[in-house]
């Protein structure tokens, strides 16, 4: 049976995670509990939500670093409206935030299509633009738990099932539900729909995709708007979990999500990437971040470890790609 190279990569990631977990568990047996798993899922839920959107963008050959600003914009605006109008509906929160996020994503897509410049630079600009617009025109105040619509906190605390452990109840966060739904929907889009295949085609070769009738501009409109939608959802999840609304959170953590996608095997050059890989990438980073403390290293060591793993994974996968290219006498630099 042939194990394809990409599958091998993800398998290695998984194995590393397992061994690392065993290692941590040996040093600190408290690690081996269902709480750890639930906790990991809960803290990584926001990143999981956005990495799925980012994955699509990267597969299409682009990149987006404005998604955190979009998430913030969507959730902040929505909640301000909810507070002012006294609305207390979770559906409204998600719905409006999604709409706003999608709209902002659309703007990204339009700019990228129109200006034809590297998406990194453009979304770096829109990141500041969106955040700046929000704080200047919509508001820059923080809102504490007291004023927030109660549906948010209820959602943030909601668990799917729980049980008693020691002296507290632990449960699997309900945030898993939107994530699973989004993952399933995205999987369906990517593998079962024409637009999904168009995304992959575009990432492989814009010209070839055009030749068989795909419309690159339209595909880009789709992926960036989709990412915006997911970012809008994520914004609400974040506020629900934190139970407070700040005007300056989230923005600045984008590159960690990009790193997760890269560790998960998504290439920045586009054309390939797996949802499971991106999810694994996020989980590895959060696993590292939360467990270093269990083996005696303070949280200040997080970046170092993540950075090291990132550099190694980039070095390995880039080198592999280069060897393959050179063998076919393809030179790109």
């Amino acid at each position, binding site marked *: 049976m042939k194990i394809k190279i990409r599958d091998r990569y993800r398998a290695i990631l998984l194995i590393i995670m397992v061994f690392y977990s065993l290692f941590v568990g040996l040093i600190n047996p408290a690690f081996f509990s269902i709480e750890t798993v639930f906790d990991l899922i809960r803290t990584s839920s926001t990143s999981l939500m956005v990495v799925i959107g980012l994955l699509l963008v990267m597969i299409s050959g682009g990149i987006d670093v404005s998604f955190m600003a979009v998430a913030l914009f969507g959730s902040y605006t929505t909640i301000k409206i909810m507070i002012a109008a006294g609305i207390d509906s979770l559906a409204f929160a998600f719905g409006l935030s999604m709409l706003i996020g999608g709209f902002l994503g659309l703007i990204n897509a339009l700019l990228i299509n129109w200006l034809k410049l590297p998406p990194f*630079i453009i979304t770096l*600009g829109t990141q*500041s633009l969106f*955040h*700046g617009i929000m704080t*200047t025109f919509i508001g820059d105040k923080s809102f504490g738990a007291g004023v927030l619509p109660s549906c948010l906190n209820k959602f943030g605390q909601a668990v799917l099932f729980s049980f008693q452990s020691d002296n507290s109840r632990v449960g699997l966060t309900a945030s898993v539900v939107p994530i699973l739904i989004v993952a399933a929907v995205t999987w369906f889009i990517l593998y079962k729909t024409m637009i999904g295949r168009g995304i992959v085609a575009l990432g492989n070769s814009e010209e070839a995709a055009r030749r068989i009738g795909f419309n690159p501009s339209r595909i880009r409109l789709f992926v960036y708007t989709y990412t915006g939608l997911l970012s809008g959802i994520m914004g609400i999840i974040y506020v629900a979990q934190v139970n407070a609304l700040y005007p300056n959170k989230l923005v600045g953590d984008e590159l960690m999500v990009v790193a997760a996608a890269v560790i998960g095997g998504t290439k920045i050059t586009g054309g390939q990437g797996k949802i499971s890989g991106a999810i694994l990438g996020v989980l590895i980073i959060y696993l590292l971040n939360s467990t270093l403390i269990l083996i005696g290293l303070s949280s200040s060591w997080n970046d*170092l470890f993540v*950075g090291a793993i*990132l*550099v190694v994974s980039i070095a390995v996968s880039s080198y592999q790609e280069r060897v393959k290219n050179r063998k076919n006498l393809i030179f790109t630099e």
Partner: protein
Amino acid sequence: MNKIRKLAAGDINFAILIALTLLAIVLSGVFIGDKMFTVANIQAMAYQIPEFGFLCLAMMLSNLIGGIDLSIIAAANTIAIFTANVLNGRWAFGTDGAARIILAICVALLASILFGLFNGLLISRTSAPSLIATLGTMTLYRGIGMALTGGSSVGDIVPGFSYLGKAKLLGIPFIFWIFIIATGLLGLVLSKTTYGRALYLYGGNPVAARFSAINNERMCRSVFLLTGLFAGIAGIIILSRVNSAKVGYGDTYLLQTMIVCVIGGIHPNGGKGTVKGVLVAIIFMQLLSSAFTIMTLSPYTKKLIYGAMLILVLGMNYFINKLIQKYKTR
């Protein structure tokens, strides 16, 4: 007529840049001239330009070869942390006073070169795209800084060191001299030396450069070594002015250095752009920054303006190029 066309096509970006800068000077003169163009404020600007300027030069170099170096700010901060640790005695090996300062600077420069070389080796040996590679090293360098400091700032510097940040030579801050000299040298190297020529060719078409027997690996390594060096110098300057070092200082600089490069005429695909464009762009950004401070704009509003600027400038470049194409094929 043809000569005007050539001039227009090549230097129109620069002409617009000069116009923008003059406009900024005039407008700020009219509205806040009393605070903007005082001796004190001009000197303040002259003190602030160098650290930002070196970061811009670093970003410019990475752009010239068609890439991007995201790690410059993390490197600058971590190197500042290293330097601070020497200066406050923790890593001083028993030296003190002037000897300690010299040791500190040596450590800083060595670290800069190492950080830069690491980037260069990573990218040249694995052909990793620079965006991703420097994303990784940025996290790594930041991680080193975090591991050392836990996020708090490193202070307690030997007093003599801050003298560097304040000293003046002929009325102009010492660090400004250093920046100007460095810029001049870089400009000279890029426009008049064989290295500069090879750099532009490599940046414009690395494949053809390889087939022309240009040593691509060496070019890549040396350019990133330089970006590391400039980032490190920025770190030293930051330390000498702020008198402490910490992770995360100047994170907002990243966007601004990119704006400078775009405005300054550096094409993100590489192979095009000059130091003089970047220099004027740096001055322009500094004018804006000072004006914003005088107008007490909130950091949020500044962000909005910077973000809008980047998009507008990109859009403007696009239109201008389109017009030039139309003009050319008439």
